């Protein structure tokens, strides 16, 4: 394994964050929002001198550090595009253990490495990587010796092994642990270590009864004590830390409605004292100090915001200082140095991505470290208002995000998924802010079933699908409409949120003007009958903990069985590989709506589960959802030209991505009409990339024949505005495509538009072909073969399909002398000039059978646009003396035959192979898809030629 170390590329991160004043008000481009956080996971070195951090960009992921003294950013290790961080741990103030993965040549591989930071004159001058060969993770610092850690690994037999080890030694090439912790039971699935109390905890799981047990002991102790036995996961029991040898602080709701911090007495298995309980909210975490035996902090969500309440005076003071220093941000302390003289603090805000600060205790000074998504720092986002309503006796909290900038007068109601044990918060949310910055108001509701408001409220959501849950949402909508009424209301959600949105429209069609149901469930009884492995009692019991017991009533609250009542404009999105809300739910609803002739729109994503695997899916989906709402409600389309100049390009790229996705027949089924709509939208502002994409789409359109002049105009326009791709495409089209009616002057004019980049391969190849095809206008005495050979191998290899077309074009143009032909063919896969013969095996229209396989339909009466025609043929040596390993070449030429019998070339392609590979049982195949232009001909003709342009096989496909 090798790593590229980038050293001393010094970038100052100070100043990334900006003040609120001066932020722009504009729709935030989807590509800027739906992307990875650029910087994350800062961790202080023990001496507080360095802050390790992880950086992700489109080009690469890398581990880096910030020098506290100089504020310089020093990249440590490049992990390639898609590299990931699992964890890192400062082993000492100069050794950082990194665990994660890197991507090299498209392959992902695990990485465990200790990065040794070497300094000269106080600045980082070198980083030495030491590979850690043993797989495992660090559980924490050993209480018995702060210089050592507990390192957990797995033996060859699959058992967990824990060592107490000097962490620096893990990087030794032949490290093998010696100080091993003995007597670990076999049935533990995971161990935890409480360093403060020197206690080891083990968790075991009973598959049959779905219960947990927890045992514990001193690290070096022998007998294991039972802390908790056969614990049912219906309740919470999370150990937060030992207070003494027999008492532990736990988060639990066994004895109270809210999840509170308890003192749990292990020998008597009782909750003896409540250490902290909030009257309204569940705690989500807590910390305790073993030495004092007291809790030091608790966390909970209040009004959607995470609140960290420090019960330790010093930390409480620090946090208060921080909160005061940066208004509008809520700080929590994330990490601190060994002497607690420096803190890393996280600054949250609902209307800004997270910022990280460094807090110097002695100076009482906070300085920004970095913003996690610097690209978003320029924008203004929506700040929510918290509303509370009473619904069927319960208080329901909701968050209303007013629109930013131009107001659409639309309230987007977004029920969350789950619905039980999940919640919405007001932390910065990409999806919400995508819509608020496009002028929508957004409402999120923590309806009954949501987490964070106590056990009774949470369990109150069980079995309330389509009933009290939607009543809670309705109450929240009414409240918001009283305060800030919107003319239109649309419901949009994913998973349960998709179900809920659709049910809201079925139950209240007068209220809801449009619905976007994403990755939803629509047939509730199907949840109990999804498969043979999901029909048993255990499965039914799990499902009923959310949906309620299986009964006839489920049919009355399933959108599938209520489909006739759907009258609201509806957009359905789903993933074909969804294993949570299986695609069958969507397919059923789609089928029934189609049968009932109820209009709806749909986009289904390939290679997608219960959400998008890549940001591209999120970008595509939200761009089309925004468009759907605007069309449905008759709103003005997003006006890119009215936005600040810096935003326009990215907004155009959003539309282009949406178009590309519909055009490519990859992530979604090809839909040329939709693709063109978004290409047109993107090109409306004359952006060069959009013009280029629109031109290509028109050139290759299947459903409609666009005038060639229009395509040439678009390509020229794009090329004039700086699109190198457009210039290359136009020149290539002039050279290869008979429709373009090229002449040398036109081609030369186009070549003048190539960027001034001598190293560009496309420019070199196009120049070479022009040189070969038009010898009369050559500017140098160089022969065609010389021009070809002058292009480096490396440049040629990257453009194989283009090269095959070029050589085929040269052969059919008959511009080459025999010796030139030999040189060029030899340079390409060592093809010889030996003769070859071709024989037809099968030809016809390719028809996909019920089993998904293609067959040839030979008696073709009519060819339609989009049809694929194909031929299967054999190639043999034309001469007796051809060697078995010689590479023979053939040109497969597709021609359009006009009414008057004249032909035009539609496609030329070079094929090659050796007699050893070519035999009667080894067929060659070529297929051709009928496009709009191809369908204007009377017939399509296939000609297979040898390298001397002699026709060896002809076949005519009639187009009636």
């Amino acid at each position, binding site marked *: 394994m090798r790593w590229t170390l980038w050293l001393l590329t010094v970038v100052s991160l100070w100043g990334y964050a900006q003040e609120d004043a001066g932020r722009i008000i504009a729709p935030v481009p989807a590509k800027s929002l739906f992307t990875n956080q650029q910087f994350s996971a800062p961790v202080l070195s023990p001496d507080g001198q360095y802050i390790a951090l992880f950086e992700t960009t489109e080009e690469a992921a890398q581990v880096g550090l910030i020098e506290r003294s100089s504020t310089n950013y020093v990249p440590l290790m490049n992990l390639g595009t898609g590299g990931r961080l699992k964890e890192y741990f400062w082993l000492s103030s100069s050794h950082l253990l990194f665990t994660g993965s890197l991507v090299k040549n498209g392959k992902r591989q695990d990485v465990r490495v200790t990065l040794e930071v070497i300094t000269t004159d106080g600045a980082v001058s070198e980083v030495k990587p030491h590979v850690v060969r043993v797989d495992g993770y660090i559980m924490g610092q050993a209480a018995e010796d702060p210089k050592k850690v507990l390192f957990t690994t797995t033996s060859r037999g699959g058992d967990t092994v824990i060592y107490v080890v000097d962490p620096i030694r893990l990087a030794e090439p032949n490290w093998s642990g010696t100080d091993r912790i003995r007597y670990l039971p076999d049935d533990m699935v995971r161990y935890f270590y409480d360093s403060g109390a020197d206690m080891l905890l083990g968790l075991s799981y009973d598959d049959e009864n779905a219960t947990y047990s927890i045992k514990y002991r001193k690290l070096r102790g022998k007998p294991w004590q039972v802390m908790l036995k056969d614990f049912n996961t219906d309740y919470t029991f999370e150990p937060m830390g030992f207070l003494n040898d027999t008492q532990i602080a736990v988060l639990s709701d066994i004895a109270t409605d809210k999840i509170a911090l308890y003192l749990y007495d292990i020998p008597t298995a009782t909750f003896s004292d409540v250490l902290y309980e909030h009257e309204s909210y569940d705690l989500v975490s807590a910390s305790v100090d073993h030495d004092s035996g007291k809790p030091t902090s608790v966390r909970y969500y209040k009004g959607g915001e995470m609140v960290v309440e420090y019960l330790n005076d010093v930390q409480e003071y620090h946090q208060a200082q921080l909160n005061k220093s940066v208004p509008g941000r809520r700080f929590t302390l994330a990490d601190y140095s060994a002497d607690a003289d420096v803190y890393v603090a996280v600054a949250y805000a609902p209307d800004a991505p997270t910022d990280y600060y460094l807090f110097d205790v002695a100076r009482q000074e906070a300085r920004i470290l970095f913003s996690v998504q610097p690209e978003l720092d320029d924008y203004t986002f929506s700040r929510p208002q918290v509303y509370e309503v009473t619904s069927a006796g319960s208080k329901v909290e909701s968050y209303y995000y007013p629109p930013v900038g131009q107001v659409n007068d639309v309230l987007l109601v977004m029920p969350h998924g789950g619905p039980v044990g999940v919640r919405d918060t007001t932390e910065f949310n990409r999806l919400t802010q995508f819509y608020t910055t496009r002028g929508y108001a957004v409402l999120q509701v923590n309806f009954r079933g949501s987490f964070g408001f106590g056990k009774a409220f949470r369990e109150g959501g069980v079995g309330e699908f389509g009933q009290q849950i939607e009543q809670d949402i309705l109450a929240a909508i009414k409240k918001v409409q009283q305060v800030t009424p919107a003319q239109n209301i649309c419901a949009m959600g994913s998973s349960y949120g998709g179900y809920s949105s659709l049910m809201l429209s079925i139950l209240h069609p007068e209220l809801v003007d449009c619905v976007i149901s994403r990755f939803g469930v629509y*047939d509730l*009884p*199907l949840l*109990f*009958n*999804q*498969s*043979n*492995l999901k*029909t048993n009692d255990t499965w039914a019991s799990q499902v009923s903990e959310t949906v309620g017991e299986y009964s006839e009533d489920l*049919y009355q609250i399933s959108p*599938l*069985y209520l489909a006739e009542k759907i009258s609201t404009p509806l957009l359905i999105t789903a993933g074909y590989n969804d294993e949570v809300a*299986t695609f*069958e739910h969507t*397919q*059923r609803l*789609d*089928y*029934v709506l189609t*049968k*009932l002739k109820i209009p709806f729109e749909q986009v289904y994503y390939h290679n997608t589960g219960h959400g998008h695997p890549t940001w591209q899916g999120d970008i595509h989906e939200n761009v089309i959802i925004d468009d759907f709402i605007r069309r449905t409600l008759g709103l003005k389309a997003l006006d890119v030209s009215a936005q600040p100049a810096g935003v326009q390009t990215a907004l155009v790229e959003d539309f282009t991505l949406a178009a590309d996705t519909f055009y490519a027949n990859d992530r979604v089924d090809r839909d040329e009409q939709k693709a063109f709509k978004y290409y047109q939208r993107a090109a409306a502002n004359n952006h060069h990339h959009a013009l280029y994409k629109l031109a290509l789409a028109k050139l290759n359109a299947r459903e409609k024949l666009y005038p060639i002049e229009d395509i040439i105009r678009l390509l020229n326009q794009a090329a004039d505005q700086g699109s190198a791709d457009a210039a290359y495409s136009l020149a290539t089209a002039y050279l290869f495509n008979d429709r373009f009616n090229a002449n040398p002057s036109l081609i030369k004019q186009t070549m003048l538009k190539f960027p001034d980049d001598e190293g560009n391969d496309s420019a070199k190849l196009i120049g070479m072909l022009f040189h070969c095809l038009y010898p009369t206008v050559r500017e140098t005495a160089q022969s065609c073969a010389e021009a070809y050979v002058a292009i480096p191998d490396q440049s040629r290899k990257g453009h194989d399909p283009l090269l095959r077309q070029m050589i085929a074009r040269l052969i059919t143009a008959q511009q080459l002398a025999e010796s030139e032909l030999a040189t060029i063919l030899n340079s390409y896969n060592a093809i010889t000039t030996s003769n070859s013969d071709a024989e037809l095996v099968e030809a016809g229209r390719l028809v996909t*059978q*019920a*089993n*998904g*396989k293609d067959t040839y339909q030979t008696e073709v009466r009519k060819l339609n646009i989009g049809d694929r025609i194909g031929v299967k043929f054999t190639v043999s040596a034309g001469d007796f003396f051809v060697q078995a390993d010689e590479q023979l070449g053939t040109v497969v030429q597709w021609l359009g035959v006009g009414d008057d019998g004249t032909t035009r070339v539609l496609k030329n392609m070079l094929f090659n192979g050796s007699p050893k590979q070519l035999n009667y049982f080894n067929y060659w195949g070529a297929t051709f898809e009928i496009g709009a232009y191809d369908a204007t001909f009377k017939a399509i003709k296939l000609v297979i030629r040898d390298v001397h342009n002699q026709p060896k096989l002809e076949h005519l496909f009639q187009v009636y």
Partner: protein
Amino acid sequence: MQGKRVFHLMLLSSILLLLAGCVATRVSSQKQDTDKLVEANQGYLLIGLVNDYDLQALYVWGEENLKLTHEDLSAGENYILLPVKAGEYHFGRIDYNYYYRTSLNEDDWRFEVKPGRINYVGHLTVEQPFYYFFANHIELENRAANAQLFMEKYFPGLLTSRDMFYAGPGQDRFYSLIAGLEEQQ
């Protein structure tokens, strides 16, 4: 003596295994959209199959013992439509190749073919996670809407003469629901 006994036991096992393979009738999926139910006690068995890689054979035990061969079991999504005797069945065994196979227990893989109709029993999904050959995940999933679309596309004639029913594990009213819609129309 001991060795001889072991040899005889092995021989017997081999013969029994061979017989078990032999007694199944080799069948292949119907390709033409014609009604091939000739007897009153026959029904159509419709199996959806989703497999990551080509399978060698699929055995269905029951009223008739059936063996589907690789020609119906290539990688991807396949449908297998067979006229069979009505009665109790279960998926019995999947052969990945000549050497590796999985036997399926009767309880988890049973279904019933009723006479005179098209009995969709589910999509048998055979997935090979993490490229580990012996760790196949096999499940019989209910994809009734998908099966309906398949029949409408490739067997529209048969669908007009025979009703579709869900005959897989659990209860499902989807086909009743869409039959009701057609009656309304």
